């Protein structure tokens, strides 16, 4: 088991290197530091001096991969690649264009993101599985059919409309909670309720339908027939047998996103003015702050890979037949 996990972690390293190289190519080779400087200083009236100054201030005035002007090991380390990309493996993200430490920003901003994303994830999971179980219980009846129709209709609505509609109804018409903002401690609760509610509702359509498919696939298997033949009630069959056996496909889709919850949601956070990583990213995109975007790409990939490893481990926990070797 431990050997397996170690191997998975070793396997993750080349992937992270790949991500790192890819972002390096995207951000520094396709799009040179000169271009970046020009974007920040305005396209037109830029002097070469101003560009050089900007590059120096932000540490982009070194060669990309190989520095001929210095000696020894420094040939490799006094470069943009070493400065900006290799440091990421140690989670040293450097400074944003505004001069703030990105690592520290991430540290403070991930908690508001988590405060929204974790409840959305947990409540959403519970609600979706409940709905899916109901539809599976009433399968091939009008309840099931209308449930599916409702799901398809709900998943055909863009997530933006859920947010806009929810804000209008709950905050503007009924004045129940503030439209947007955030606060620390328990005061945050009134800001969290609406985004969580909207997040859950927005996910019901595709979520319940997906779980319904999984459950229906399981109910057509032989062990379910055996369980029914033994005279078990349909409820016991569903909760005692089908749900347990459906855990593998459910876990496949669920566990992998758990670490990424830290990243928050771009759209929700920017609509509700939540100072999390999602709005951090969106601000960086709008301000064309490449350092932050690069850091978020790396962080996102890292968390995803952690999720993949966790998925494998979770299999062994729910299914004793699976041995990781």
């Amino acid at each position: 088991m431990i050997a397996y996990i170690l191997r998975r972690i070793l396997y993750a390293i080349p992937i992270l290197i790949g991500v790192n190289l890819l972002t390096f190519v995207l951000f520094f080779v396709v799009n040179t530091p000169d271009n970046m400087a020009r974007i920040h200083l305005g396209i037109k009236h830029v002097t070469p001096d101003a560009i050089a100054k900007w590059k120096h201030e932000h540490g982009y005035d070194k060669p990309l991969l190989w520095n001929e002007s210095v000696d020894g090991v420094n040939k490799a380390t006094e470069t943009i690649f070493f400065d900006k990309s290799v440091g990421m493996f140690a989670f040293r993200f450097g400074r944003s264009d505004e001069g703030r430490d990105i690592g520290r920003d991430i540290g403070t901003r991930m908690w508001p993101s988590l405060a929204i994303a974790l409840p959305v994830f947990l409540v959403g999971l519970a609600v979706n599985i409940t709905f899916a179980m109901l539809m599976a219980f009433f399968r091939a009846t009008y309840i099931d059919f209308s449930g599916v129709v409702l799901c398809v209709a709900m998943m055909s609505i863009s997530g933006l409309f859920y947010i806009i509609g929810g804000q209008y109804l709950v905050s503007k018409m009924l004045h129940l909670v503030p439209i947007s903002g955030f606060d620390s401690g328990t005061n945050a609760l009134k800001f969290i309720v609406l985004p969580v509610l909207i997040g859950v509702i927005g996910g019901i359509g595709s979520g319940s339908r997906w779980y319904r498919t999984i459950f229906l696939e399981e109910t057509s298997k032989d062990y379910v027939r055996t369980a029914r033949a033994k005279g078990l009630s349909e409820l016991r069959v569903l909760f005692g047998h089908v749900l347990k056996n459906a855990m593998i496909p459910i876990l496949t889709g669920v566990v992998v996103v758990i670490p990424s919850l830290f990243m928050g949601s771009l759209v929700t956070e920017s609509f509700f003015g939540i100072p999390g990583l999602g709005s951090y990213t969106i601000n960086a995109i709008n301000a064309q702050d490449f350092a932050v975007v690069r850091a978020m790409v790396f962080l996102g990939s890292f968390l995803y890979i952690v999720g993949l490893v966790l998925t494998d481990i979770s299999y062994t926990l729910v299914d004793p037949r699976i041995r990781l070797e």
Partner: protein
Amino acid sequence: MMWFKPVLLWTDILIWLLVGVVAFYAWRVRQHEHLVAPWRKVARSQVGMISAVVLAAFVVIGLVDSLHFRLPLPEAKNGAQRQYSPEVLSVFDLMASKLRTRVEKTYSSPFATHLFAKETTELPDGSQVRAYPRLKYGGAHLDDPAERTADIVASVAKGVFHGVVLWWGGALLLTLSVARWRHVSAGAAWSLILQGRDEIPWRTILATLGVILIVGSTAAALSFEYHIFGTDKVGQDVFYLSLKSIRTGLVIGTVTTLVMLPFALLLGIAAGYFRGWVDDVIQYIYTTLNSIPGVLLIAAAVLILQVYMDSNADLFDTVNARADMRLLFLCLILGLTSWTGLCRLLRGEAMKLREADFIQAATAFGVGHLRIILRHILPNVMHIVLITVVLEFSGLVLAEAVLSYVGVGVDPTTQSWGNMINAARLEMAREPMVWWSLAAAFSFMFTLVLSANLFADSVRDAFDPRLK
């Protein structure tokens, strides 16, 4: 001397290429009974056919909007060479030129005759009044705005009448073609349709067509006199913007798949068929790409494109060419982030097929790898490709809205539902609220995505062997 100059935008080329691919596929299907069978199942499904008709209506608008040209500027006197307007128009723009050119000053609500905001106007006697001024075009033919309701009713009646006439024409055509196809008389075909005795639910199709034609022609009749979805901040007709957005949505939904298909097919089948180091490399590639959060990869790529286009502004001769480049690039990058799912499915299927008896036999006969892949594996994974393509369409249309909101979607000058929603965000805060752009974007998007979802479901039901 041409009186117009055709313009082939990149996405136009790809769209028409796609039309060609679909036509070729349809021709292939007709040749082979086993390929026709699942489509017949789709055709038998009522929901499938309703959504197909609705989708077809969207596609027609999108295609008409994909024929671009530039009109000449008024002739210069000194016999200089004819200059063409920098504005790229489409055939659809020409058809809807009344909608396109009738631009008001700023917001006006649906069917309004007056602007949404008060303005100070000076009366002839020198005194100033703050009032809602009349619109330049919306309801301008009315002498007295109080006649509006009666006028709208009259327009609706006219529109419905035209719609019904068109519908009857359609019904006649349908009856005649069913009669020819089933080798019965026209009368018999008509009763076949009416009583729903044919295997294909013609009655449902006809009813859907009727609804579309009547709603469409009513909307057209009304939109000549009013702004039926109001106008936006700069006074553009929202109905026109929504219609123009159809093409953007369709391009994102289809061209993206066209872009990703070659990657997914080639790499997926190669990984599953050859196994070994090929498999390892391909798995590594798609795990790496997959691990980058999609939105961030797209954001990074679009930011970089923006930098590139800003530094090479002279590459594009018109605003549209520039916006089109960005749309195409968005499709490319969306394709790059979305091929991994299909690739993994194809790898699994190719791995399964590799061990199948008929492929073992082919190998034993000494058939080459390329031939086995083309003749034996490819046709047997096509159902997966088809199901994935139709299932992805709606997700891509929805993704466009989110990306445009984030600021990494289509060009701000491209009409798209995402841009409409994005613009409407600020209007939300106005009191009273400007709701019509949102409502228009919502209804168009919802109709397209819902019918795409329903159609995708019936295609999946017909093609997925696991569901049989």
